[in-house]
């Protein structure tokens, strides 16, 4: 009977299909790129390059995932990454652990600013974070316009795939555990699907929202460390456009833009991989950047049109 029903309400509208679509999309994009590049995208050297571009977006996306589950949005990742990278680079001349801590705290502080204005002043998160995005992008530019900020040789020496994979996997596992097995996951989903009801059931909604922004900031700060060991010096464009990349990755991964109970943790991994494969494939195929953007735009549009949950559309908090 269930099968019957799916046929009737059109395959594209069924939840099962929508749940699978991100995975199908990943396979299709991977297959298409494999075919178009005659398999070159799967060469070990290429794969390493591809993976090296996955780490820090995936760490950042994990934090943003919690914010978006609340039904909120965060546009500050790019500028946070820029500012935190500067802090990491400067501190890396003193001590590496200090640099890591500094990066995380810088990110957390920026997240706290976002959360504070969102919660205390009841401002919509996208307004707050667009404002702070400009603010911290300005801070980043102020320090880097004259010359790029170099990082110490010691931190650059850490650049290894094992370390970066290790950090990324650790972040994913911890976040998955928190989301799946602790109250945190339930609370953010409850706030995302019915804020007042959650509040009346004893969920401390203001605290949950504030902490989600702090967590997103802190993880972006950690990502800044991974970014610094890879690039070695920080220019004014560090983290440019990262926020849109993360947003589109999560949406590609199947995360409903309205948040709530329908989010899946796999959204983070699938989405980030899909974005990176598409991005790399287009570079390998030798498209110039204008054409790349055009193709990406078309793919995103098609994908969002296929996956979005129209019933749940409401204003983003």
């Amino acid at each position, binding site marked *: 009977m269930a099968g019957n029903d799916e046929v009737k309400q059109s395959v594209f509208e069924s939840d099962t299909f929508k749940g699978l679509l991100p995975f199908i999309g990943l396979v299709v994009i991977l297959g298409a790129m494999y075919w178009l590049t005659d398999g070159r995208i799967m060469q070990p050297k290429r794969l390493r390059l591809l993976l090296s571009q996955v780490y820090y977006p995936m760490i950042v996306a994990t934090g943003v995932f919690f914010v978006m589950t609340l039904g909120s949005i965060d546009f500050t990742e790019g500028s946070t990454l820029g500012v935190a990278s500067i802090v990491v680079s400067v501190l890396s001349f003193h001590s590496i652990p200090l640099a890591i801590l500094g990066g995380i705290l810088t990110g957390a502080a920026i997240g706290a600013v976002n959360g504070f204005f969102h919660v205390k002043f009841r401002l919509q998160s996208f307004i707050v974070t667009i404002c702070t995005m400009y603010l911290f992008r300005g801070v980043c530019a102020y320090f880097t316009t004259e010359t790029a900020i170099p990082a110490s040789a010691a931190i650059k020496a850490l650049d290894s795939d094992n370390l970066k994979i290790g950090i990324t996997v650790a972040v994913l596992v911890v976040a998955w555990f928190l989301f799946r097995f602790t109250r*945190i996951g*339930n609370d953010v989903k*409850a706030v995302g699907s019915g804020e007042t009801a*959650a509040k009346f*059931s*004893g969920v401390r909604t203001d605290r949950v929202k504030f902490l989600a922004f702090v967590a997103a900031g802190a993880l972006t700060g950690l990502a800044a460390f991974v970014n610094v060991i890879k690039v070695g010096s920080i220019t004014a464009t560090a983290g440019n456009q990262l926020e849109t990349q993360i947003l589109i990755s999560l949406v590609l991964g199947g995360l409903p833009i309205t948040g709530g*109970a329908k989010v899946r943790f796999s959204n983070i991994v699938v989405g980030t991989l899909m974005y990176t494969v598409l991005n790399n494939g287009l570079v390998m195929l030798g498209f110039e950047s204008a054409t790349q953007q055009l193709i990406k735009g078309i793919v995103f549009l098609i994908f969002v049109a296929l996956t979005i949950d129209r019933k749940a559309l409401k204003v983003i908090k």
Partner: protein
Amino acid sequence: MPGKNILEMRGITIEFPGVKALDGVDFSLREGEIHSLLGENGAGKSTLIKCINGVNRKDSGTILLDGHEINPSGPNEAMTLGISTVFQEVNLCPNLSVAENIFVGRQPMKRGQIDWSEINRRAEELMSRFHLDIDVTRPLSYYSTAVQQMTAIARAVDVQAKILILDEPTSSLDENEVQLLFSVMRQLRDSGMGIIFITHFLDQIYAVSDRMTILRNGHLVGTYNIDELGKFELVTKMVGKDMDVIFSLKRANVPPDAPVMLKAEHIGDGSRIDDMSLTLRKGELVGFAGLLGSGRTETAEMLFGATRAVHGEIFVDGEKVSIRTPFDAIQAEEAFCPEDRKRDGIIGDLSIRENIMLAVQSRKGFMHPMTKQEQTELADKYIALLGIATPDCEKKAGELSGGNQQKVILARWMAASPKVLILDEPTRGIDIGAKAEIQRLMLEMCGEGVSVIFISSELDEIIRCSNRIVIMRDRAKVAEVDGASCTQQDILRIIAEGAA
């Protein structure tokens, strides 16, 4: 003189995954009649309506309109066929004028431009047919819900409707507004329109309809002329079981020396409530009576920390507590079922299990997570205990009927075993059978020593259940009366006159 059938439905069956929402239902509507559609929540009324206006597709059966088979694919097609629906929630644009709302999407044009004077003239004409003399150029939000409802009806009938479906149009109207609506309905009937009317208020059915059709669990019980069936028989047919449950309810037994569980002294929120005092004994049920806006909900929200009391003191079980947020209240072992169940109570996208465990989890704290298995056991226990109609605890709470959603919220709080339970209109908008069950559960909890505050607009259920009744008026307590010895008239007089 009965008119001919304009709508005939035969053997309608609609299946949703796991349930037959309608099973071989026949229904007919005559020209020039008001036909009430009755049944408990989940009986299939809405499904039948949605089948007529094309929102739901039927699995089998035929629909004949004026003798021709139709199969509308959606409300728009139904509308062009002459079937208009006015839904419970008014689906209009509050910022547009009354006239614009009536004609939105089909504005009369003149030389390629919208003909505003024509729109306003025709809107005025329509509204005056309903004896409403209003300025149709004002935004819709300027007017009362009743006028908004009339606007929706005006919009529906102006498209040359033969059939008008009114889905619970009276639930947010006051008595005068209801009468106004009824006169419009009679007028439309006399002009030959067939009207299908859904409501939960039995008196209204008898006041306005010609015939009624009763559904139960997706099956047709029968179609009757209005004078064929008395209220008691009607309710029995709707519920399908004896009404004895309702009449066998017994007030909680509270010894005079029972300890005071909740005491509020001179609390006020600085704006709406100035000075409210209240005591509640262990196992006692105190009813709050009063009109809408009399301060019942405001007091309850303050006691639960949904709004903050800026002065006064609250004691729970003898201890002074500081309640600034719902979280604090839950820590003090209070529980609250809010008035607006859909917005503030149930979280529709979460499963029944997740909804039930929210408050327990909040009580237990972050460091004591419950395993999935514990959660499932807990949810299953309350599903069985409260008789929540669902295949399993993973069903989304939003897909349940109103009465079952209310039971889920009750389960949420029963699981947290509170000392004080505040229920704000727990029985509103749910059917009689579920109402009786909620009242029974409430009294059972009193029997187990929970102290209950029960807010309701229906005086008879307040009187039936309460040990004491607090009567509120103009945002203040005006009297407290004994539940066992007072009558509806007593309470109404106090509400009207303002003193005991």
